[in-house]
């Protein structure tokens, strides 16, 4: 059973890798093609040696079909250190009117939003930073679907890339314990608290990206998993 799971995941990996190769042939010249031309890290690489890009999007809705990107923040993680010099944060110009709720939650006003990058500029920067790295996020669905939608609109194709999702990493650990748990425990803030990581200001994309990266470091250190291969952590 376990053997099947592992081999499925390996298949998935090779499938993903194969997808990248196939997609590379199809997509037109441009940022997406450049991104796909850089190979993903080897699945056997110890997680400590895998270059990652911790990422967070602030969006106007949870569903990509209903909302749009407000801001993005990312920072690279190499050799199990978060390099703040690589940190980037930018607002994305909105194509729609911002609701008052959005302003309240993200503290990004319409005026500020208009001073941001266009969706095209933002995605191009992100793809350049992500090339050759593993995406590191907490609850990947938002980043995955919004990035897919943006690339579809901009380049006509959705990208493929490896993802480490700290929510999934924690969930697997919880599931292995065979004990019931409160789904709330899987929230970024609650997981961070469980490792006594300092409180952070949520609802800022870069802060959340750094917070996610710190959580992964704590998670790996606590469970002596720094030598484990990347494939153990992929979604």
């Amino acid at each position, binding site marked *: 059973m376990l053997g099947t799971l592992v081999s499925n995941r390996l298949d998935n990996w090779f499938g993903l890798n194969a997808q990248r190769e196939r997609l590379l042939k199809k997509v037109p010249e441009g940022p997406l093609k450049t991104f796909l031309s850089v190979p993903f890290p080897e699945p056997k690489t110890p997680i400590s040696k895998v270059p990652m890009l911790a990422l967070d999007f602030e969006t106007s809705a949870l569903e990509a079909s209903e909302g749009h990107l407000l801001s993005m923040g990312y920072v690279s993680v190499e050799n199990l250190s978060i390099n*703040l010099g690589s940190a*980037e944060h930018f607002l994305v110009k909105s194509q729609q009117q911002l609701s008052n709720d959005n302003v309240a939650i993200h503290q990004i006003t319409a005026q500020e939003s208009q001073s941001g990058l266009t969706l095209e500029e933002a995605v191009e920067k992100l793809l350049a930073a992500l090339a050759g790295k593993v995406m590191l996020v907490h609850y990947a669905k938002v980043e995955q679907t919004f990035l897919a939608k943006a690339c579809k609109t901009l380049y006509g194709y959705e990208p493929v890339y490896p993802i480490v999702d700290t929510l999934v990493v924690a969930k697997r650990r919880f599931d292995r314990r065979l004990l019931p748990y409160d789904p709330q425990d899987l929230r970024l803030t609650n997981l961070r608290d469980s490792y006594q990581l*300092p409180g952070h200001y949520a609802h800022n994309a*870069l802060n959340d990206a750094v917070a996610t990266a710190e959580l992964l*470091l704590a998670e790996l250190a606590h469970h002596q998993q720094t030598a484990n291969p990347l494939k153990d952590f992929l979604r």
Partner: protein
Amino acid sequence: MDNELSEIYAFVGSIAPFEQLPEEAIVNIVSHISICYITAGQELPPQHIETPSFFIVRKGALNYVDENGELIGKYGEGDICTVFCYPEKYASISVTAEEDCLLYALDKQKLLGTLITQPHIISFFEQSAEERLKNKVSSLQEEAVVNSTLTNTGVDQLYQSPAATINQHQSIAETAQKMTELGFSCLVVVDNENQVKGIVTDKDFRRRCIAGGIPPEQPISEIMTPDISMLDIRHTAFDALIAMTSRHIHHLPITDQGKLAGMLTITDLMHFEGQNAINLTSLIHKASSVDELAEISELIPKLQVKMARLGTPAEQVGKSISAITMAFTIRLIEIAEELYGKAPVPYAWVAAGSQARQEQMAQSDQDNALIIDDSMQPEHGPWFERLARFVCDGLAQCGFIHCPGNVMAMNEKWRQTESQWHHYFHDWIEKPSPKALMHCSIFFDLTTVHGDKQLLNRVQGKMLARTQKASLFIAHLSKNALQFTPPLGFFRDFVLISNGKNKKTMDLKHNAIAPIVDLARIYALQEGITSVNTIERIRQAAGTRSITKASAANLIDAFEFLTTLRLTHQANQLQAGDKADNFLSLKEISRLEREYLKDAFKVIKTLQDNRQSVY
């Protein structure tokens, strides 16, 4: 776009030595940070940090351990570990995570590169604890010099020159005429060679001439005050203040190389400081009842706050407050003598503890004793008992609460003849017991407040002759002194005293200042030094077998820093209308001060350890 790492900027910007840096510099430093995480028990540096780096503790705690495995320090949130950047200094130290830690690693070369225009920050990292403390103290003193008018001003800038003089052979009437013409309240009396013979003030005409029935044709030398105090021109106004307050005088002739150069009056000094010690002592001197004195005593905390705010060094504040307490005591004794009549035999009222050391602060408790001449007869007992009770109660009414340990003249045990005092010291020194010594060490710091100085001088002289040879006694005293050690581990959570309202504080007096006072006393007793002031004792002991010159300088720095910290702490409390105490909480002090506090502790610990290895 904005790089939104505001929390990290705020954190880095709040820790020493980055506190004073501008925002752009902080942003620059943060861009060089690598965040890493290590679990409890792991040794630093983390494996993947290969270049020499500083580590800022963002969360968690680190233990520093020396080559013998002894814990030498704990570092917590906001502390910076510099051990791996200066291997030549810290080769023997290993650092382990005591708890899981989130660390901000800063590459040494990159960080120092961003700080090229901030040499004081670079030197902060490069200096050892002792060196940093030295710099802190000198910058404290700089502030004091800038802020305090009296310490900054030499007598030469204040005095009036030349001093108005009168020849000692001129008559009382001629003197009065001259004073009226000049509009002066005071003249210096000189002989034919212009040598100072005495001083004559308005008061002398009233007290000695009119009331004493001396005819105005008599020479002025008949009513002048001979043997006057003078001050050399090279002293500061602050020294003049101390000279005047301790002697209740309002005029101080100023000399230059022994020759009369001019006159400094209380008014000259008052122009510099409004509500000051002179003001207070002159009020004390005029008070005619205990109630009046109690009223005046309410000004002491205000004076202390003012001096602290002016940046007056703690050493000088201690001297002023001690001088004022002395004035209160003397006035109370004078009132008591008016009530109960003159003393039947000579005696000395002596102050012990911080007052004797001239290190007293407002609202401290009283420690005193009586040394009575051996000619005392049993029937004289009640007179001294009444005197002691009156003065001790009076002091209590003036805010100097009764000594909790009952070290007061009103306790018969401490109201004894000179012979009995010799006997006491003989027993303490020749047959020392640690417990007895703990209670009596206060009596090794004594000064005469009023009465016959010779009584105490003889007691002290004999005592010091004994202590220098009494190695068992010194050993016991050392053992006691080492009981209170600075809480090196307290930086982690500052939890030291966990009773009631003093939660999460450290006792600045018992854990930091008292250990230095104790060390200084041991040095003094071992070397036969008569001074009781702590700094003076250390200064005189420097370079003897007790302490090296370098260590003495470090210890004085630590003492000055700690007492200044206490002064500020108490000034804040007094200003807020609270009672002054010695319990410092972490919140009160800046991170930079915390660093210096840590450094001061290390100095004390080192010298205590030296002591331990001797005995």
